[in-house]
């Protein structure tokens, strides 16, 4: 499945300045692995040593927090949009 992966500026410098990356995979974890393989410096920012997301990072698949789904095992569909956002402050 081809999806769009959006990075915050703070990470884009590790992906040749790109804030939007086209990637592929059957699950979110596959997509992250695809991007990690293409941008090795970005890889350790996308997932921790155990291969999961960091606690201060929230992955959204379209508009849904993946922690309310199946985490990196969540299936993705053609045209999905994945967004990474740093943790959420009070308001």
């Amino acid at each position, binding site marked *: 499945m081809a999806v769009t992966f959006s990075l915050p500026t703070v990470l884009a410098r590790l992906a040749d300045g790109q804030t939007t990356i086209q990637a592929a995979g059957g699950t979110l974890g596959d997509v992250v692995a695809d991007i990690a393989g293409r941008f090795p410096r970005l890889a350790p920012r996308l997932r921790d040593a155990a291969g999961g997301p960091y606690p201060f990072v929230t992955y959204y698949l379209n508009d849904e*927090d993946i922690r309310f789904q199946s985490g990196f095992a969540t299936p993705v569909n053609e045209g999905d949009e994945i967004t990474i956002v740093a943790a959420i402050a009070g*308001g």
Partner: protein
Amino acid sequence: MPTTLDFPRDAATRTIPAGPRPLPQACKLCGTAYPASASATCEECLGPLEPVYPAHRPLPDAATIASRAPSLWRYREWLPFEGEPVVSLDSGFTPLVASPVLARRLGVARVWVKNDAVSHPSLSFKDRVVATGLNAAIGLGCDTVGCASTGNLANAVAAQAARAGIPAWIFIPHDLEVGKVIGTAVYGSRLVRVRGNYDDVNRLCSQAADRYGWGLVNINLRGYYGEGSKTMAFEIAEQLGWRLPTAVVAPMAGGSLLTKLEKGFREFAGAGLVSGAAPRLYGAQAAGCSPIVNLVERGGDTIDPVVPATIARSIAIGNPADGRFAASAIRGSGGWAAAVSDDALIAGIRLLAESTGVFAETAGGTTVAAALALAASGRFNPDDEVVLCITGNGLKTVEALQGSLPDAPLIAPRIRELEALHGRDV
């Protein structure tokens, strides 16, 4: 109701003074250092940034602080700037109100209410954090400010940005209480209602700050903004006569306030300004959104996010950024946390009003109800001196009380009708 409003015509033409210089920052997790900037995220580990204070800066003594104007800036050496603030100079220094009735209800020696329900200018503790956030925005050259908000922050940013003459974009969930929407729109900011809950709004704002370079006080200026919360701890200590209470109960949304209370008490103790041991910290949440209470109860260091379902919208954050730090501060202090039902928090609002003369919003009711729950479970001692942090005004969330108060009797302007009522009540 319109979703956007034009700016005041003269806003763009006002002269904004040069701001103070914000301090450099460092990552709270990995320690990586950064120069001052409108960024709140570590490039190495994506952890949160916080200001770094000069290690040997001169600090004032109690008499010097007491001689200064009654605002949060009397503690400016503990706020993240070099140089003088230029806007929001008169926020802070709210009353600390003794409540003997609540002390009896909690079975403790004394209770005080830290009453930020009367904070200037927008009737919530968010005036504190916006005061520092706005000065940081000006100091960093941001030409537009804003926030993602559950209501109180929206009011505070809108009011203080209007006074400073800085354009503001303010984002709120679509279903906020009317008082908080009107209490933002009236200041002429660009107010945007977003379909979704606060976590959805915050996600959008994170992307907006990234794209437009705005100074969104609780997003990319969060390190500077959060330090303003420490002033609540400083004021409590000073108003108690330069000593510390034994316990503090505060509401938790993103969790920052709890961590900053701990930091504030610690900094004053480290400066030799106060006597007494560090207080035990207790956190309060509504049961319909209690991810931090859940973490305190189960241990560990990872928040499990929840989808909020409570009338306490000002603290309805399902994915709290500082949740793990708040839980750590609570456990490290020897305190605990409690979640209360919506019915209990409404009863808490009424109890605070009837016992102490303070009308709090839903977060305040949550704090009072949690204090009662903590007392019932034996968390307080008979000799405890407890401070309840009331962070917002009840006039903003009157919907919460609809149907829970007795209807006022309607009478003709005749004395016999009053006598009938009086006799009946007696």
